[in-house]
Structures are given as structure tokens and as C-alpha cells.
């Protein structure tokens, strides 16, 4: 069961990598990377389950967090061209 699950996740990850490399727009890549990130979270939980270690799940949580932050960062970069920009309803410079 677990083996099938692992295989499925890995296949999904490979497909995501293919899409990330093919593009063609930058948004496709971001989407693929996001998908890859969530699949990585699952892979880590699976490894934790295989090892029977609950504390490995912290790492999965970190992955989920980093995935989200990376997403925001890329979007921010893409929309505003700078990471420190406040946007129009924040404190304006």
C-alpha cells in the first residue's frame, strides 16, 4: 500500500518537474513548483510513517511553510519587481 502511494507521489513529482522544465510561461513553472512542493510534503510524511517517527513530521510542516513562502516571494517578485515593496495600501514610500 505504502509502496504504491510512494510510487504515485514520485510519478506525480516527475510530471511536475517535466512541466516546470517545459514552461512555457513562468506561471506554469510556478504552478508546477507549487505542486512539487506539496508532493514533497507528502513524501516526507510517508517517509516519517515508514520510519515510524512522529518527530519527522515537523520537517513536513517546514516544507509546507517554505513552499508557501516561496510562492509568495515569487509572486511578489513577479508582480512588483521587488520583495520589499509595500503594495499600494501599505505604508507607501
Amino acid at each position, binding site marked *: *500500500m505504502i509502496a*504504491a502511494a510512494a510510487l504515485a507521489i514520485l510519478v506525480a513529482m516527475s510530471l511536475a518537474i517535466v*512541466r516546470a522544465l517545459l514552461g512555457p*510561461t*513562468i506561471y506554469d513553472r510556478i504552478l508546477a513548483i507549487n505542486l512539487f512542493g*506539496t508532493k514533497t510534503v507528502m513524501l516526507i*510524511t510517508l517517509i516519517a510513517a515508514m520510519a515510524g517517527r512522529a518527530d519527522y513530521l515537523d520537517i513536513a510542516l517546514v516544507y509546507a511553510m517554505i513552499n*508557501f513562502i516561496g510562492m509568495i516571494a515569487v509572486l511578489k517578485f513577479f*508582480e*512588483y519587481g521587488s520583495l520589499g515593496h509595500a503594495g499600494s495600501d501599505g505604508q507607501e514610500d
Partner: protein
Amino acid sequence: MTILDILSGTLLLAGCALGVIGAIGLIRFPDFYTRMHAAGVTDTLCAGLFLGGLAIQFGMTLASAKLLLIFLFMLFTCPTSSHALAKAARHGGLKPWTKAGSDGLDAMGHEGAKSR
């Protein structure tokens, strides 16, 4: 093979099936928005089912609580980022694909055409 095992296996497999389907959609669909549809929609449910399946295997321990936390986190962040991404793409001028053939790529140019 207890009933819990079967339940957990079913959930796992269902989750994984969703994941693979989403990934295939990511490859096969013609443009960004449809791909996003495939990936974004399946993603959260896939994670939910998968983590649920694992939680059953772990039983009522701290691990399950952590899995729940991970699930909650993903429940918030995955749709949010999908939404933000779709909005950004729309905002950036990427036109949805139509069967007529005026696909988004032309409006967008090739990747990298728009640089700020």
C-alpha cells in the same frame, strides 16, 4: 487486515490517485488556467486524503495531531497560493485558452517577454 488498515489504504490510494491525476492534468492540459484547474483543485483534497490515511495508521498519537496540523496548514495555504497565482496570471495579461486557437501564449509572448 483490520478495518482500519483497509480504510487507511483506501484513503491513501484515493489521495494518490488524485495526485497523479492532477499531475497528468498539469502535463496534458493546453494552457495555464486549465492546468491550474487540474493541479490546484486536486491538490488540497489529495493532501487531505493522504494525510488522513497516514493518520489512521499512526493511530491516536501526537503524530496524528501533527498530521492534522500539516493538513490545516495546507488547507489554508494551497488554495490561497492557487488563487494568488491565478490572479497574478490574469493581472499579468495571460489570456485563457479558447478552442478557437487564440491561445494565451501569443498575448503573453513567450516566457520572459514580460519583465519588470
